[in-house]
């Protein structure tokens, strides 16, 4: 059972990491369109060669 002394604090670290990833995902706008990506994955070919990066989602 001694391993729990390591595992429990470790689980806290993981939760914190996951929370950070989640907050980043919210900030980068991944939750703004909840319908589109589900359809988009069915369109089997990729976008034609883009002339640049995607728009910056933070810019407002």
């Amino acid at each position, binding site marked *: 059972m001694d391993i729990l002394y390591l595992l429990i604090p470790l689980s806290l670290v993981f939760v914190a990491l996951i929370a950070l990833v*989640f907050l980043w995902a919210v*900030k980068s706008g991944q939750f703004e369109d909840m319908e589109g990506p589900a359809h988009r994955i069915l369109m089997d070919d990729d976008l034609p060669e883009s002339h640049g990066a995607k728009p910056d989602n933070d810019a407002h």
Partner: protein
Amino acid sequence: MSEDAQTNACFHCGEPVPTGSSYVIRYQNVHKPACCLGCQAVAQTIIDSGNADYYRLRTDLPPTPEAALEELKNLKLYDIPEVQSSFVSSSADDTNVREANLILEGIVCAACVWLNERHLHQLPGVLGADINFSTRRARVRWDNSKIQLSEILKSIQEIGYLAYPFDTNRQEELFRKERNAAIRRLAIAGLGMMQVMMYAVPVYMAEAGTMTSDIEALMRFASLLLTTPVVFYSAWPFFQGAWRDLKLLRAGMDVPVALGIGAAYAASIYGTFTGSEDVYFDSVVMFVFFLLTGRFLEMNARKKSAEAAESLIKLIPAAAVRLPGFPAARAEEMVAAVKLMPGDHVLVGPGESFPADGRVAEGVSNVDESLLTGESHPVAKQADSHIIGGTINLASPLVVRVEKVGADTVLSGIVRLLDRALAEKPHLALLADRVSAWFVLALLVIAAGVAAAWYVTDPARAFWITVSVLVVSCPCALGLATPAALTAALGRLTRLGLLSTRGHALETLARATDFVFDKTGTLTSGEFTLREVHVLRGDREQALTLAHALEQGATHPVAAALRIAASPGELTAEDLRYYAGKGVHGRIDGCAYRLGTPEFLGLAAPALHAPGLTVVGLADEAGALAWFTLGDALRPQARQLIQELKQLGVRLHLYSGDRGENVRALAAELGIDDARGDMLPEDKLEAVRALQQTGAIVAMTGDGVNDAPVLAQAQVSVAIDQGAEAAQAAADMVLLSSEIGRLADGVRLARKTQRVIRQNLFWAALYNALAIPAAALGHVTPWMAGIGMSLSSLLVVLNAMRLSRIAAHAGEGAANDKVF
């Protein structure tokens, strides 16, 4: 529609191809039919740019692009820096890199998004394009040194969609922030809940003695660490709400929630440090998570019902041509419409919309005010005529002196009207609010009583039983039952094209026993269609071709009706001169022709003059060639609407100011028993009052200024198809869709809403009646209380969300009518 629509449907938009049409689309080496030049051009652009897969991927048919091509003539306006300032943001490092938000019209399925994104990415100079399928909005970034915004907009137009920039107004931005904050709170609560459960379950499951006390303490401290952000970040809105309520000496729903969370959290901390048995961090996080889920779902439903009002705002153009030196000088300058001041003079060309309210300073023209006033005939404007911002100039350029701008304009007034409806709480919701306030008060008293009673009998258990009572009771289910159902239903209705402008509309529509209809513009389209052609010389085809050529550029409804009836010929007319309200004069192949009223032609009106019909004649120098009769046609879905309303068991009445014989003929055709004609507005008012005295709940459907008093008299009123402005002000609902059949969908949805509200209230009452006594008697632990309460409010919200799905079938059915 009929079968031939399927066999001979336009490849692009699915509309039937008119006979004799020669437009074709090359698709995979096969020639497919097209219904019009617009479809042909759009389809060819899509295919030639290598995006032919669109036709394989799409699941819905796009609108016919014709209408889209008419709009946005002055795309160049959007390139002016002044105009762009309101909706374009440029990158800090490079002012050439710009970004704008666009509203996309015509997006019907995911393939449209795919097509638009691909198409935009193919444009040189476009740095990025992101289309949001849920909101139908696009964010485009481009290099201004390589491509102009107008070219981007134009290329979207070329594939049959309509894009225009919009100003992400503050409200929009606010909602986005609010929603993101809600997601963050939900995420923190969810993660916290999962992990705290992980620590809690072993403690519950472990047999006595198998878990050492220091491991248990470690788990409790870990739970405390995770619960703290959930309480102070995720649950913060509940504390804020409770504090607001307390300051106002109100008992809101947040008060028992905040008390429960706060007390359970504080007591669990105490338990953690003293090592007592009673630690309920798991209950706290779970409670917060489920509550936030319910609120999040409700927030989204509310947002959806608000979107329709926003679409009206786009009527005002972004830019205007100002004449600063008018009348002395005629130098033109481009300005953003928002910068216009009263007293400015603006030049508005044909096909453009007016940027503000004002008066004509120079010029003579016709103006289409149908969108705002419901007047389907163009209105003649001359010097000093009043102009409404957002209406469209049809014939020739006008110089307008601006009188009212921004919030003072008529259009802004209408938008405010819609906002009011969203802010106004319906009767039932008000009642539910009052009931839940009393409920909360009673609950606090009960909790205090329970605490006192247990303190006397068993002080050790008193605290946790009181917390359980606070948590298990569900004022949320009670308080959410009505608003959740109403917002879901209103959102669905708005998407069906039926907009509620008053809070009570839905409720009353569900209870309506009598539907009263106006005739012209309500059951009939109010638009002219060609009824008959009486040929005196030559043949019918030739007469129509000549008429088509003569009316080529005219915008009068008669002209439109003739153009629709005739297939375009090879003929072109020259020297066209239009006489407003009278007719047109022109030359075809060297012969002079006139087309217009009998008076205009100088001929006696023919004997075929039928009641209620308009007669125009076509004449050459030798005299009349043909007479056309035009009349008002039944709306496509009128028959179906009447059928469906009958099945719903309501009584139908037709009250019209039109001639009695016309009204009775129409009523007989539709199967309406009570039909009265020759009615003045006062007569209609009297008739509706008489109905109401017999106990009927009257739903009045009409348009036009004449109907305004009777619309106000009826318990619930529906203004049809962008009805007159006054009618909209008096009407409780506005049918924005041109499909009148949606009204029956609306009634069905309203009734379902009432059912769902009753189910929800019943459930909330039952749940509370069982759970509170059980908790008070000490049979419910805090974690059970948390689950019970959260599931109860989730159930209520999910039951309400069902409304937005049920009605979807009715809506889709109506939409499919168009295609098949």
